[in-house]
């Protein structure tokens, strides 16, 4: 009896399940949106493309401060990062990139968007153009890092029949990928808005800037690749024939001039009274900034904030018990020229060997390019309207040094216990102290709270700006033999930096172009790509422990280790030098190795897994 009852109950249950209604197993999901729901609503499509924008690849950015210490721009003043200065060689896989998952999603977006009839045509065309821009940009990133790569322009789907060979594509020529990027920029331009106030989405200005940058990279690889014939592959997957250089330079110059002549953008010059402050503000001023073309934006209290200021704020003024991580190197700091357009390393000692005495530490850096103080927090200068405290100790009458090993440490000098080292250091081997004597200023946010863990910063990361466009124009014009045009563009950028004596066309050289990009674009993620395309990387990072160069103006000067410049106070009561400042050039003790960029580093290693899955992909040279 009981068993019957059980079976009846069971049958009723099953019956009830199966019967209830037809769409029981066909219910619309409540946790994801389906294609037909997305592609009729502009707002939803915008959030799809926002995700794709967010995955725009960057190598060195303000969200990843330590990568800036990989080469010679800065020292990494944090325990876990000292290894960056102890390694000799860069791995062949370093800064590699192979994100075909992202490309597939862009291709899917493009496929679906072009069929989305429910959107307004102009809205749909704009989304489509943005996705095509992003896709071309990924290929640009891939070709910069890996050379020619397989060009996949439609979403590939595996049929699970055991033979994936239909999906395998060989690598294109390096030049073909650059051609693709340039062509795509032309194709998407008409559908994009021509509005300089749009900073975080694709615009006509951005497309022109990208086209110019890509063409310039291709041109310089064609021209300077001739100096390193070993860095090439017989099929052209790596290396561009020298004969193509002029064509690319012309494309680059034309694109930059189209952008410049449109008059939509201008150099940032809101604070002409203080050019250093002006240069620093160019990066953090988000209100009507005429120079910025394309950014990755951040917003306070939205979850999308960045930690650059938290990581790098001067330790003495820090809003947390940290900061001071990135210390610009003397190598970079001495590259900023004097206001008369000449170069000089910093004078620490007179001809006789005695120190040179300065009344104030900042006097050492007076009369230099205004971008120096806009890029670097120098000893004796201010951040957030407070003075930083960077000094390494006292030098006594007999030449001995009195210092301490904690921030603002004290010791007995002349019978009194006084502070003998700055609250920012420099203290060798003490993390967060300014171990090179400098802190980074570019991108630091002067807003209150920017250095707090609970607040952080909403300063944006600038990927394209007008000054770079001018420098690209100058370089392209110079390489095409038009030195007066090159001088015109270069002098605009230099005048903004306080270098009011214009360079004459005869003074424009390759070294000048290299140098101008180095100082204007420091800490903006350009250095590696520039050194690669000029084939200078293996020259300046040659692995030899050479001393700091005395010729910062020379593009081929080696710079394999990061040096520092430490200020000391003189303690010698009764003498005229008492209380004055002297400087010592130092090599931080954690810098134990010289960087070596090998020929195999020019194009990153394509992993064995990738080449196993697709045997048509061949290896990069010299690895």
């Amino acid at each position, binding site marked *: 009896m009981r068993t019957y009852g059980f079976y009846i109950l069971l049958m009723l249950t099953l019956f009830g399940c199966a019967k209830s209604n037809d769409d029981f197993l066909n219910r619309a999901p409540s946790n994801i949106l389906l294609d037909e729901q997305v592609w009729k609503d502009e707002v939803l499509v915008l959030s799809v493309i926002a995700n794709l924008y967010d995955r725009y690849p960057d190598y060195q950015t303000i969200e990843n401060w330590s990568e800036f210490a990989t080469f010679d721009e800065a020292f990494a003043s944090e325990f876990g990062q000292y290894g960056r200065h102890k390694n*000799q060689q860069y791995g062949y896989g370093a800064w590699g990139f192979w994100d075909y998952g992202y490309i597939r999603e862009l291709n899917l977006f493009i496929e679906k968007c072009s069929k989305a009839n429910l959107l307004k045509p102009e809205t749909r065309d704009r989304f489509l153009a943005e996705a095509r821009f992003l896709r071309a940009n990924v290929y640009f990133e891939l070709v910069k890092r890996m050379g020619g790569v397989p060009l996949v322009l439609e979403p590939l789907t595996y049929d699970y029949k055991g033979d994936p060979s239909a999906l395998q594509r060989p690598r294109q020529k390096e030049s073909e990928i650059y051609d693709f990027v340039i062509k795509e920029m032309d194709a998407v331009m008409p559908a994009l808005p021509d509005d300089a106030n749009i900073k975080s989405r694709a615009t006509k200005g951005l497309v022109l800037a990208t086209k110019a940058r890509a063409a310039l990279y291709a041109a310089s690889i064609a021209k300077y690749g001739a100096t*390193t*014939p*070993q860095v090439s592959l017989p099929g052209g997957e790596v290396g561009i024939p020298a004969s193509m250089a002029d064509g690319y330079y012309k494309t680059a110059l034309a694109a930059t001039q189209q952008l410049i002549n449109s008059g939509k953008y201008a150099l940032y010059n809101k604070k002409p009274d203080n050019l250093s402050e002006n240069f620093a503000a160019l990066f953090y001023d988000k209100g009507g900034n005429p120079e910025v073309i394309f950014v990755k934006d951040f917003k306070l209290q939205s979850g999308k904030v960045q930690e650059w200021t938290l990581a790098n704020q001067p330790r003495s003024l820090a809003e947390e018990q940290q900061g001071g991580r990135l210390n610009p190197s003397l190598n970079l700091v001495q590259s900023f020229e004097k206001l008369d357009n000449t170069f000089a390393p910093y004078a620490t000692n007179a001809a006789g060997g005695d120190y040179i005495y300065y009344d104030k530490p900042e006097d050492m850096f007076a009369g230099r390019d205004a971008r120096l103080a806009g890029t670097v927090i120098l000893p004796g200068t201010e951040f957030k309207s407070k003075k930083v405290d960077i000094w390494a100790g006292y030098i006594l009458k007999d030449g001995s040094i009195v210092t301490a090993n904690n921030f603002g440490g004290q010791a007995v000098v002349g019978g009194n216990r006084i502070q003998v080292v700055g609250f920012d250091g420099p203290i060798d081997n003490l993390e967060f102290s300014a171990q090179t004597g400098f802190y980074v200023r570019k991108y630091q946010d002067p807003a209150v709270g920017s250095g707090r863990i609970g607040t952080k910063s909403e300063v944006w990361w600038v990927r394209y700006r007008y000054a770079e466009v001018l420098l690209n124009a100058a370089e392209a014009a110079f390489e095409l033999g038009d030195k007066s045009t090159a001088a015109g563009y270069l002098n605009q950028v230099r005048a903004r930096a306080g270098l009011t004596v214009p360079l004459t066309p005869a003074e424009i050289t390759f070294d000048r172009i290299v140098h101008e990009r180095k100082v204007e674009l420091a800490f903006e993620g350009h250095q590696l790509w520039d050194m690669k395309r000029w084939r200078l990387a*293996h020259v300046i990072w040659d*692995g*030899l*422990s050479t001393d700091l160069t005395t010729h910062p103006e020379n593009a081929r000067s080696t710079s394999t280790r990061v040096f520092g410049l430490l200020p000391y106070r003189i303690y010698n009561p009764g003498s005229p030098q008492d209380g004055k400042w002297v400087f010592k050039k130092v090599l931080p003790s954690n810098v134990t*190795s*010289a960087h*070596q960029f*090998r*020929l*195999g580093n020019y194009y990153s290693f394509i992993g*064995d*897994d990738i*080449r*196993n899955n697709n045997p048509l992909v061949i290896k990069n*040279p*010299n*690895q």
Partner: protein
Amino acid sequence: MRNSLFIIIIVLLAASCKKDNYAAPGTSFKGRIICQGEAVNVSQGEVFFELWESGWGKRTPVNVAIAQDGSFSSLLFDGNYQLVLPKGQGPYLTLPDAASHTDTMLLQLKGDRTMDIAVLPYYMIRNAKASANGRQVTTNCKLDKIITDTRAKNVERITLYVNRTQFVDGINNIATQSINGGDIQDPGNITLQVNVPAVNPAQSSVFVRVGVKIEGVEDMIFSPVIEQKL
């Protein structure tokens, strides 16, 4: 009761360990990179060659690094390998394999094997001798041009390296002295001198060798390391 349970667990654990482990590779493959019977000295670990073994799902090479005296050694499984000297690796040109006429050499491993690999370096440094006067070290050597046909390359510089340990090259050194390729008067008799800085703790001898950097070639060719009493 508790103890015996414990023993059973131990026995089970030990038994499971044994079962699914592979034997470690035990066949040694060693030799030197040579030219005319003489080892080609390079930078420690900078140059390598690849061993490929087919028949596995994925193709990944075993990279064998070459030590600074030109020797290599590797522990492998028995099997049939293909040995490839990658293009652009090492300060030498590779000789096509006699059997396959390609850059690939077939290598059969069945028990330990010692084999020298012949290559064609651009130069060789011969008869390197060192002497010391106080802390000044002097070396003398002869630079022998091996490749003289159209593939020949010029010398960029020749450099004397001194280090406190036996690893001496462009990266590991405490003192160097160079002559540029164009300034070499007599390649048969090259003399280089350098003052060795004081080292702490003091040592009674230093390690010295001479390297040649060839134009357009990344890796250098060295003389054998000499331990020089000071």
